[in-house]
């Protein structure tokens, strides 16, 4: 059995199936089951790649190496836990009358299709397909953002669609330019968009074109990553969509978009000596971090706040990859992983909390520890983890990023720390009174799924104290590939 085909096919088939039968009683189980199967096959794929090295699939159309297989595993894992989490969450929304069966069907099928597009984006070898998959990821989620059909959610979805659509159009222009540059080297063999070929000739790509191409790609995919000042869609979409969607948007989509930038950066670095691409990314990263940090303190909506926190972390990661080098790339990858795990865990907890209290307004959410200690502790620990408190893994990666910055870009360190400090003060000031204090919220009809929260946090905790050696090897290899 080919794990790779399974990994792509399961979510695709499940998505199609659910688009017809998504309102049935057994549909949620299919959703969870399919996600679990995807994860298992992704795990199988990972084991295969670790054992046998990189491989192609469908000719040279797909290419799995140690970098993207890791993201595949992560994506499938978070997809699985999100599916588990969303089961009771969506049922509760249904009980509250916020959703109709039809929309539930839409949600489930789109969720699976979204997973599929992301996995395609991660595994494809063709930068054009990568673009297509990224656009498809937007398309599958845009209706999810407006799932509640409230004015606010429609507005958010509209902004999401337009801004990301325009952004990704820039990326297409960049891709065309890249193709143009590559064609001059590789000839009109149709291989000029294949990354494996591109990377071999990256040194001989024309620098002028590559610099323009990278600018378009960075601005384009950067819009999806949420780099300031193109981030404006992100808080709206996160805040107004259903929480599972926020979780996968934050935990996965941003990662995949960043992954696209990384692939392009490798090529740009080859063509452009002097770290042009890296400098741009560092600039965007720092600016994003600082802007997001100062946005944070004015938030009232809990999901919106954590959306800004995602922007902040994307800034940090972009900065890390911008610095380049083995340590920073390693740290960037680790931070991406940690952010995915922790931020989705936070959204799980936030989702339950907001459901319990019937509001996303932070001033009305109080006393989570009293309502449900597990949700309270989950949110508290998750927040502390995302704020970079040891012993969680976010600290490990931030530690590496900071120390690396201190060594090579000392001027950036105070700015980084300023951003982190402001973010800490802002977020913690909001979260603490929500977790602590008194409350009289009622029980929910469907018991929340807390396990994913703690599984994610447990993993983050483990990574803060001990990164398994094979994971380290893997990270190192990926970091080496990034240059």
């Amino acid at each position, binding site marked *: 059995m080919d794990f790779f085909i399974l990994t792509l096919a399961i979510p695709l088939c499940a998505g199609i199936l659910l688009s017809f039968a998504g309102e049935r009683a057994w549909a949620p189980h299919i959703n969870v089951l399919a996600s679990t199967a995807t994860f298992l096959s992704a795990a199988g794929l990972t084991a295969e790649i670790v054992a046998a090295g990189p491989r192609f699939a469908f000719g040279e159309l797909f290419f799995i190496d140690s970098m993207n297989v890791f993201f595949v595993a992560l994506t499938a894992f978070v997809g699985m836990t999100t599916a588990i989490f969303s089961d009771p969450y969506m049922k509760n929304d249904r009980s509250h009358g916020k959703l109709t069966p039809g929309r539930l069907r839409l949600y489930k099928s789109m969720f699976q299709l979204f997973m599929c597009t992301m996995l395609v984006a991660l595994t494809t070898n063709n930068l054009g397909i990568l673009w297509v998959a990224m656009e498809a990821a937007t398309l599958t989620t*845009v209706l999810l953002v407006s799932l509640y059909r409230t*004015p606010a959610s429609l507005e958010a979805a509209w902004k999401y669609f337009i801004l990301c659509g325009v952004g990704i159009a820039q990326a297409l222009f960049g891709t*065309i330019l890249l193709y143009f540059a590559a064609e001059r080297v590789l000839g009109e063999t149709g291989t000029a968009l294949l990354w494996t070929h591109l990377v071999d000739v990256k040194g001989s790509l024309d620098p002028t074109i590559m610099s323009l191409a990278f600018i378009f790609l960075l601005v384009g995919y950067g819009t999806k990553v949420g780099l300031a000042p193109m981030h404006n869609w992100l808080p709206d979409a996160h805040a107004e969509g259903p929480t599972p969607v926020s979780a996968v948007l934050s935990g996965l989509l941003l990662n995949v978009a960043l992954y696209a930038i990384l692939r392009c950066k490798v090529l740009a670095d080859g063509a452009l000596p002097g770290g042009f691409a890296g400098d741009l990314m560092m600039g965007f990263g720092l600016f994003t971090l600082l802007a997001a940090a100062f946005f944070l303190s004015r938030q009232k909506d809990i999901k919106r706040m954590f959306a800004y926190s995602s922007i902040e972390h994307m800034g940090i990661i972009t900065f890390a990859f911008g610095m380049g080098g083995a340590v920073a790339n390693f740290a960037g990858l680790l931070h991406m992983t940690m952010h995915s795990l922790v931020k989705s865990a936070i959204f799980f907890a936030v989702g339950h909390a907001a459901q319990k209290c019937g509001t996303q307004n932070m001033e009305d959410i109080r006393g989570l520890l009293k309502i449900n200690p597990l949700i309270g502790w989950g949110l508290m620990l998750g927040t502390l983890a995302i704020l970079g408190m040891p012993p969680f893994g976010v600290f490990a990666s931030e530690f590496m990023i900071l120390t690396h910055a201190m060594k090579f870009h000392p001027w950036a360190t105070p700015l980084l720390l300023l951003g982190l400090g402001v973010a800490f003060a802002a977020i913690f000031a909001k979260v603490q009174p929500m977790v602590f204090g008194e409350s009289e919220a009622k029980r929910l009809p469907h018991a929340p799924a807390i396990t994913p929260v703690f599984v994610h946090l447990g993993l983050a905790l483990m990574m803060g104290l001990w990164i398994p050696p094979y994971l380290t090897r893997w990270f190192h290899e990926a970091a080496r590939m990034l240059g």
Partner: protein
Amino acid sequence: MTSMPLYAQLINLCAAVILLLAFAMLAQRRVVQLVDLFALQGFMLFLATLVMAFKTGQHHLFYSAGLTLVLKVILLPWILHRLVRQLHIKGEVEPLINIPTTMLIGLVLVVIAFNVAMPISQLSSTIARGTLGIALAVVMLAFLMMITRRKAITQVVGFLAMENGLFLAATSATYGMPMVVELGIALDVLVGMIILGVFFFQIRDQFDSLDIHHMEQLKER
């Protein structure tokens, strides 16, 4: 100039018309006419691609041209017209910035685009190398249109015009993208359009209007 082969002149002509149409769209207030202009732009793109295909004899350029014709000249304008009819979109579209100013800004953008594309064009080995600057200008003008218009539907037209610019760039600079990519892009555009259609109805249901100034509620206070 006279030394330029006929094909190239034809393609350049098409490109120039596309740019002209982009300006016309920028200046056009009526939605129906806007859609027509968009269809015309698509048609010019089709022509350009066709000329290119005949010159180079590459098969996928023919497919690409066909795709353009079906999608951009027929299907999308048809959907847009249907939407305009069904949603009873009124004619006048008052832009955020008045038309003359917009045109001036557009002029500046064209200069910028040409300048940016200059070094690339000089590298291009294809016959249509001058068109890359035009393509970039079209993309930017479409962008500008999206910024300056109030109605959701004009934003969408702007978005689609941007895709036209991208297609022009792809054709002119590289003889088109690989087929699988082109298909993928076309599929995305189509699905996007359908979703947009769904969306328009949702928006109309909620706001009783497609004016996007209703959708300025989500902001930092």
